[in-house]
Every structure is written in C-alpha cells, then in structure tokens.
C-alpha cells in the first residue's frame, strides 16, 4: 500500500508560475536565455512565446554549447536531455501520462552545438 502511494506520487504535474507561462527542465545547465546570460539553471519558468536557450552539455574533453529555439506554449513543460541522438542534447515536450510515467514527445534538435574546450567560456 505504501509502495503504491509512493509510486503514484512519482510523476507529478508541474506547477506553473502563471497562466501564461511554460516550464523548461534541463538535465544540463541553461546558461543563456533569450540572448541574456543567466546563472546556470536546471529549471526555468518561461513566458510563453518565442524562446531561445543555450544549454551546455559537459564532457571531460569538450563543452558543447547547444542553442535551442522554439515557440513555448502556455501550460507546457519542455525538457532537455541527452539521448544519444544526432546532437548531444534534445528538446522534448514533456507530458505526464499517468502517475507511473511521463512521455517525451516531439523531439527537437538544437540549431547548432558549438564545441569549446572544457572550461572555456
């Protein structure tokens, strides 16, 4: 019973800041948002609309600065992760399917990924 309760609490719907916002979750740090440098963040509340984010995929040899551009829709969750696709990172629309799992839909590649020496800005 306790296990069921724990499991059913695993996949939770996100809380949006306002009605006109979306959420960006990332397994890697977001360092630029809409052209402005920001503190490295893993969760951001976004105003709905055109969004450009730069997210860094870290490896021991290089950092890959990947630029994503998409139209963020109100009340939608987006997630960036590495899935060994053509680019190091992929943007998905995250949807809570039920309490046990979520779905990653509409994979979107970055516009480009700039390879930089590890640790360089």
């Amino acid at each position, binding site marked *: 019973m306790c296990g069921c309760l724990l499991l059913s609490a*695993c996949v939770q719907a996100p809380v949006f800041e306002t009605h006109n916002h979306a959420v960006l979750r990332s397994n890697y740090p977001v360092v630029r948002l809409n052209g402005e440098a920001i503190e490295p963040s893993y969760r951001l509340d976004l105003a709905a609309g055109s969004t450009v984010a730069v997210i860094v995929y*870290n*490896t021991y040899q290089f950092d890959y600065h990947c630029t994503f551009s998409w139209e963020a829709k109100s009340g939608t969750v987006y997630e960036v992760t590495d*899935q060994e696709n*053509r680019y*190091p990172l992929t943007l998905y629309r995250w949807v809570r*399917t039920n309490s046990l*799992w979520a779905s*990653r839909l509409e994979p979107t590649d970055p516009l480009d990924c700039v*390879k930089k020496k590890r640790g360089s800005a």
Partner: protein
Amino acid sequence: MASNIASGFAYLERNAGVTSWQLRPEGEPVLNFVKPLPAPWLLVVINTAVAPMLNADVLPGLSALSESIVRESAIAFVNSTTSPGLEGATLDVDDGTRQSEQWRSSLGFAAEFTLKRPIFNGYWGVGIIGGSLSDQSELVADNGQTVQLDLTREVVALRGSFGLSFPINQYVKIRPYLSLSVSDLQTESIVDGLSGLPAPDPQTTTAVFNTSAQMLSTTGSLEALFSRWYGEKRLELSVHYHLIHTDAISEDNPVLQTKAWNDVLQLKSRYSGPTGLTSLGRSWRWLLYANHTNFVSQKRISLGYTSLFEFGGGMEWRMNIKPLDWFGWQMLGIKAGVITSEHVEGYFLGMTAR
C-alpha cells in the same frame, strides 16, 4: 568389490546428496549417443552431482577427472548464462562427440540517469535470468568401458548493477559498473554403463543424482562505447570487459564449496536507420548488429565452446517514456539473430528494451 560398492554408496549418500537411484541391468541402453569418444573426453564428464564420486578411490579408471574441472564446468554454465551484457540465446553444440543444448533468457533493464552537477552520470540495471543445459556425451573409460552421461542443469538468477558513465566527448563514453547476482543451480545427472558403480547390486550400471548449489557472483565491468550519426543513420561500437568473482555454496556437493575468478570480453557493433514507419506518433528504426563474446578464462571442455559470434537484425520503436519521471526508456524492439562458433549453432529471437 562388494565392500567397495557399499562404502562408495554410503560415500555418495553422505557427500553428494543422492536423492534417487535407478537400477538397471548392465548393457541396457539409456541414452543414444554418437561415436565413442577418445580418452581425453573423460574430462568432459563434468557434473556437480557426479563430482564427489569422481575420485580414483571411488571409481578407478576415472581418475583423470579433477575436482577443478567439475567446479569450472558448473561455474562456466552459470557465467555463460548470467554475466552482464549477455542476451537471450539458444545454442546447440555438436562436435561429433558431444551433443548439448543450452538456452538462456533474461528480463531486465539498464539505463543511465543524470547527475546534474558532476560531468559523469549514473548507471543502473536489474534483471532476472533463467537458463538450462542438456548435455549428453558418451565416454570411454580407461579400461575401454563405455560410460554414458546425461546432464541437465537449470539456473535462475537475479542481478543488479550500479555504476557511473563518463562522457569523454560527444562520441565516446567510459562506463565502469559493479553487478551482484545470486544464482540457484539445480543439476540432475544420469550416469549409465559404468560397472563398479558404488551401489549394492553389482549389476547396477545406472545412477541418477540431483544436487543444488547457490552462487553469488560479483562482477566488475568496464565498457568503452562509441556512437556516431551519419545523417539519419547511427553507428555504435563498444568493447565490454567483465571480471567475475564467483562464490559457490552447496550443501549437498562439497566439491562446489569454492571460489573462482573468470572474465568475459565482448565486442559489439550496431548500425541503425529510419524506416519511415510510425506507431502512435513514434518512429520505427531498423537495425543490424554483430557481436562477439569471448569467455576468456573458460575452458572448452566446460561447455564445448569458449566464444560466440552473433549476427542479426531487427526493428526498434522509439517510445520515449520516462518511468517514475526518473530515467529515460527510449526503445522497445524486436530482434532476431544467428549465433555461431566452432561446433556451435544457435539463434536469438526476442524483445529488447533500452
């Protein structure tokens, strides 16, 4: 002779956990076999149940069999079934002097999970594994006597893995991880045609033994993985090395109270591309693969092979879900392949998940 038989029988009852006997007049065939084997094939008489009686004191003429071979055989079967990196398979060994059929199957899952601050990621996996071996051989004892063996082994194991994944760059990862598995091994052995068996009746030439053993395996694995996209197609190459320490416990077979080190090397390759097909809005990809598995420290007499080649293809569906909102489950696929090696033919047909 009678006292030897009686004492031998008692020895077996005490040390080998004999649970049943079949008494059969000498000369009545039990198993159908291929041509007689040369004397070195005596070394193939590997069975946990038979092990305690395979001493020169009990069965003169079979002194070539050593306890170490018995141990290695049992552990080789468990390792070739439960080692990390192995998938399902059905194998037939037929080298003219030995016929065996082995299968293994597993239900499990392994995935990386992201650790946000450090560069490396975590890696975990769980699996339940089952396998069996039916091994039939005909032997010629030192005195020219024909001995027939029919061995059946079954194993069920649980395995858990945990480790790290270090991305060197976009294309290369190094993944060390540790696996623990617990296996339950059941063995039935039928020895036929061996006069001088330790039984009360001098005419007895057939004996049936049932024994069990539990094995705790600790495996240290190191994997190097390369993957690169060429347009819509993807090439994956990987090298896997597994160092296995096995601790075996048996209440009814003291020969298997043992510990052993073994290692397995695997080379895997895979090439995949888009099919243009979709289901529920998710795409299907075709794949071709070729794998080589080398049981480096395994002796040929243990199972009849020391390496396997596997070639095949399949389809994968990119279902892309995130169970428990924790780790990504990207692919669900079907795969079929052929397995081959010297004197070995086999196949794999099943589902895969990653």
